């Protein structure tokens, strides 16, 4: 098994290389098949790895590939850590990735850049696998930046459109802001622990003591990294824009895998966070704020993918809320379920877009359920799952988070519940506007409406099944579940568990409370659904056209709280202005002027000294005599 593990990332890499190097020479259909098959193999290996290590307490192992960097005390092997956490992530990545590859074969069928697309996708999977498999922070960082690159390449996949390119650039740059935090954290870790290996860091973390400044700094910086990659406040703005990429990309990268990297990273370093309550509080706060913030924006969006994007941001906020309140399992659980249903939703949306010839505005859709039956059903299942209706997967994962949040602070629970309400509302609003009512697009679009090919619907069905049953991986004990995921992850979370066991300050909720909370959240979701139904099905309301008069609040959320505009005014414009100013006034008229002034002063001196050379012998003789006098005077003074 150990030997095969290194093939998990190598397979997609090989796929990338073959597709990438052959590019034009590669037959289009072959490209998809190749890319998908390497994913299939990778998944098979991941799955068998999973089988081999599950239920075994000390099954994790490290695979060394080669020494990456060895400088002085800094030793960074290129090695993979195979443990329950990474294997789970690998399965999600390769599994969901495989499905999306399959889907893409249909979705991208007519695109001329198909080969390139699959090459990028494979490359992305490669980096994502590096991210989760790396046994130290550097390898993780390699993957971390690599997925950012692929995200950049895929968002700007249709490079002729400069708006898409802008979105890609924005994604990369905002991510880099986070990356800076991450890499500074790595420096701190190295300087503190003398190693960047997870094992070493975790082993010596507790020596620093709870709440030490150093740990807080490290974790805060790590969290900054996570906010970038996982689109949290204040660095979330790139994710909605990232929808410019092809829809499978949105599904794979911007919903299921890459954006959860931040959560993975925090779970990976869980003990560090457990030891710094301040950071945890910050994370919880940011998480819930993001969840709420994005959810409210989602209420008023009209672009099918934008709604899903804000939903993703919001769901990621939930995950961070979970991390902040110490429920690492809950977070990962939600990562998993979210991967299923959000991938499903995106792919469904892709199917819809495919059907309506590229239209993304839900105001111009409607009544599609008849024509796109499979898409509709699967999309419905996904929507229910995300809204948190039992027994769909989303219910369990979200409920676990909300329960943990409640035990941490009821206020957090309250805010989370509001976000959950919004989620249910806007998701069903989306569903209703898209599939119910009558078609609002052009006649031509109507004429073209068709269900997607099997390569696209098959992944939808598989994901739909997973979205429905995914929750069974970790049914809470209170509902008679085995909390399988928690047990599976126990070795990874052992340091945290031990620490809590030793300090014992985690209050357990009573069963009654848990039941109450569950009930409350279901009720809240249902209210949201009903409200959406009333508004968009019963009243047949359609969101206002662009430019219509709107209330202040509506306008505010429709324009996403003007965050982009604010960032533009606060960061982008000043930076550009600074650049122009710096060049004109500091560089050219400042430093360079000063440099030139030095040489000019010599020229000036030259002009002055030239004046002495009058051409008049009398003057020369006088000057000579003055010289003589000066020397003799000097001599006289020395006597």
């Amino acid at each position, binding site marked *: 098994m150990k030997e095969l593990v290194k093939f998990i990332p190598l397979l997609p890499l090989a796929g990338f290389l073959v597709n990438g190097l052959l590019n034009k020479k590669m037959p289009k259909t072959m490209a998809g098949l190749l890319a998908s098959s390497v994913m299939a193999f990778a998944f098979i290996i991941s799955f068998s790895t999973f089988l081999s290590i599950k239920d075994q307490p000390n099954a994790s192992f490290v695979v060394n590939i080669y020494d990456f960097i060895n400088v002085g005390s800094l030793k960074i092997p290129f090695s993979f850590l195979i443990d329950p956490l990474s294997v789970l992530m690998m399965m999600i990545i390769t599994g969901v990735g495989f499905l999306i590859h399959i889907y893409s074969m249909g979705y991208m069928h007519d695109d001329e850049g198909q080969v390139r697309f699959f090459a990028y996708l494979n490359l992305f999977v490669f980096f994502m696998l590096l991210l989760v498999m790396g046994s130290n922070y550097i390898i993780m960082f390699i993957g971390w930046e690599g997925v950012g690159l692929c995200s950049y390449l895929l968002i700007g996949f249709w490079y002729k459109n400069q708006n898409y390119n802008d979105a890609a650039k924005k994604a990369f740059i905002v991510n880099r802001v986070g990356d800076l935090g991450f890499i500074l954290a790595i420096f701190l870790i190295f300087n503190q622990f003398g190693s960047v290996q997870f094992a070493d860091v975790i082993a010596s973390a507790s020596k620093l003591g709870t709440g030490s400044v150093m740990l807080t700094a490290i974790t805060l910086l790590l969290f900054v990294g996570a906010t970038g990659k996982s689109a949290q406040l204040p660095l979330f703005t790139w994710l909605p824009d990232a929808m410019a990429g092809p829809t499978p990309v949105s599904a794979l990268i911007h919903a299921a895998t890459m954006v959860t990297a931040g959560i993975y990273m925090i779970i990976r370093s869980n003990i560090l966070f457990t030891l710094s309550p301040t950071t945890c509080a910050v994370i919880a706060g940011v998480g819930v704020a993001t969840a709420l913030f994005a959810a409210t924006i989602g209420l008023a969006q009209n672009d099918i993918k934008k709604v899903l994007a804000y939903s993703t941001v919001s769901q990621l906020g939930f995950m961070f809320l979970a991390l902040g309140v110490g429920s690492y399992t809950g977070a990962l659980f939600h990562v998993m379920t979210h991967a299923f249903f959000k991938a499903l939703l995106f792919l469904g949306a892709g199917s819809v877009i495919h059907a309506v010839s590229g239209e993304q505005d839900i105001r111009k859709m409607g009544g599609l359920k008849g024509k796109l039956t499979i898409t509709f059903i699967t999309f419905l299942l996904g929507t229910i799952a995300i809204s948190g209706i039992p027994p769909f997967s989303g219910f369990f994962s979200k409920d676990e988070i909300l329960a943990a949040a409640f035990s941490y602070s009821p206020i957090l629970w309250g805010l989370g519940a509001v976000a959950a309400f919004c989620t249910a509302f806007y998701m069903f609003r989306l569903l209703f506007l898209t599939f119910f009512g009558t078609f609002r697009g052009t006649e031509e679009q109507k004429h073209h409406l068709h269900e997607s090919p099997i390569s696209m619907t098959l992944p939808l069905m598989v994901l739909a099944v997973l979205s429905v049953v995914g929750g069974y991986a970790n049914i809470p004990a209170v509902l008679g579940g085995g909390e399988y995921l928690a047990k599976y992850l126990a070795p990874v979370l052992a340091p945290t568990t031990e620490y809590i066991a030793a300090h014992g300050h985690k209050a357990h909720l009573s069963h009654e409370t848990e039941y109450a909370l569950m009930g409350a959240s279901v009720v809240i979701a249902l209210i949201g659904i009903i409200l959406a139904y009333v508004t968009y099905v019963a009243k047949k309301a359609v969101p206002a056209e662009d430019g219509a008069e709107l209330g202040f609040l509506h306008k505010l959320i429709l324009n996403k709280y003007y965050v982009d505009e604010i960032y533009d005014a606060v960061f982008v414009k000043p930076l550009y202005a600074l650049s122009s100013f710096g060049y004109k006034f500091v560089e050219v008229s400042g430093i360079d002027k000063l440099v030139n002034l030095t040489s000019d002063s*010599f020229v000036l*001196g*030259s002009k002055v*000294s030239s004046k002495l*050379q009058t051409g008049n012998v009398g003057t020369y003789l006088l000057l*000579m005599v003055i010289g*003589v006098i000066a*020397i*003799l005077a000097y*001599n006289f003074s020395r006597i």
Partner: protein
Amino acid sequence: MIALVILALLGVFLMMSGVLGIGRKSAGVVATLGIGAALLANTLMWDKDVTALNEMFNKMMIVDNYGLAMVGVILASAFGLFLLSDKYFSEITNYFTEHYALYIFALVGMICMVMYNNLSMLFIGIEIMSVSLYILAGSNKTNLASNEASLKYFLMGSFATGILLMGIALIYGATGSFYLSGIESHFVDNPDSNNIIALVGMFLLLIGMAFKVSVAPFHFWAPDVYEGSPTFVTAFMSTAVKVAGFASFYKLMYICFTPNILYWESVVWVMIVLTISVGSITALIQTGVKRLLAYSSVSHAGYMLITILTANEDSDLLFYTAAYVIASLLAFGVLFLVIDAKGDDKVESFNGLSKSNPFLAFSLTVAMASMAGLPLTAGFFAKFYVLTAAVKDGYIYLVLIAIVNAMVGIYYYFKVVIAMFFKEESSETISISVSPFYKLVLTSGILATIVLGVYPDLVYNLI
């Protein structure tokens, strides 16, 4: 000494043939060969025991390796220059033979200046040289500039002679001797000498010599005279004359006044600073290459003057003068041709020379690089040795000022290079034909500059 005799006879011979009006065509060849013979004779004396010869004339002149080396540089530069003389003479005058005779006499004077051991020899040597130069500077009689140069040089030169003589007189009065050794022993015997008369004499002597080598503030004649004189004379003045001046100046200061250095150190220090700065800074905005080279020569005089301050570094001076002379020869060689072709010496006249005549452009570039003191040229080590000696003696600030001026120097030397390589010729290209002698001199100049830039020991270890 034999060189002296050869040259004196050669001069008389040329003069007589001039009077008789014969051998006009071959005068140049005879003169060049004669200088060559003198150079050979000079070289043959190297390392020989010449006590008897020195005694013969009562040690009025001392033949030693220092003198031989310096005379060697002078004669070699004159030899090189004469090889380049073909066009020059026929154009400005009918009196070639007499001209050649005057150059030869000037060389005789220089030998006296370099090898003197008695102030009378120094004085007479200087006068022979100066008188010849006064005439040569004005040899283009119908040219006002030449005339003006000649008169200026003459007036100021004789004035300086007056000062020099006053110095000699006072020195004699104080020390009772015209012999260098006599003067030296006076100062050595009276180490804390406050013999004011001797000191005044010393300073006046210093001033007189400073004038001859164009050290500020007694340099004012140089730019005007260099510019006004026929180019060939300018070349002669900035090579052989300069070397002779410094060789004698150095000898004088080193032998006689080193015991007294505390008295004149600061004066010379100031002179050096003034010379280097005035030379290089004023050169910045010059548009004529001759004038530019004149200021450059002033500035180089400052560097050479450093050797006098640091003393006991004969090799420094030798190397510096050798490097400077070679570079000057190269520069003037090209300048002759360009002036000949273009009619003036403006920097613009050099525009596009690299295209019409790359060889000349390259020669001049090497010359300028050497004068600027860039590595791989002799000029670099020349400055390097001088500045090293100065730092060794603790003249850090002096060196810093010198360095700043070296930077300024690069600026104006490269103005010419820029014109040659990077600027387009305004009018149509005039191709300049280069005679074999020019090729010979320029090629050997380039080689010498580079060889000395890589392996300076060749000259430096001579003395």
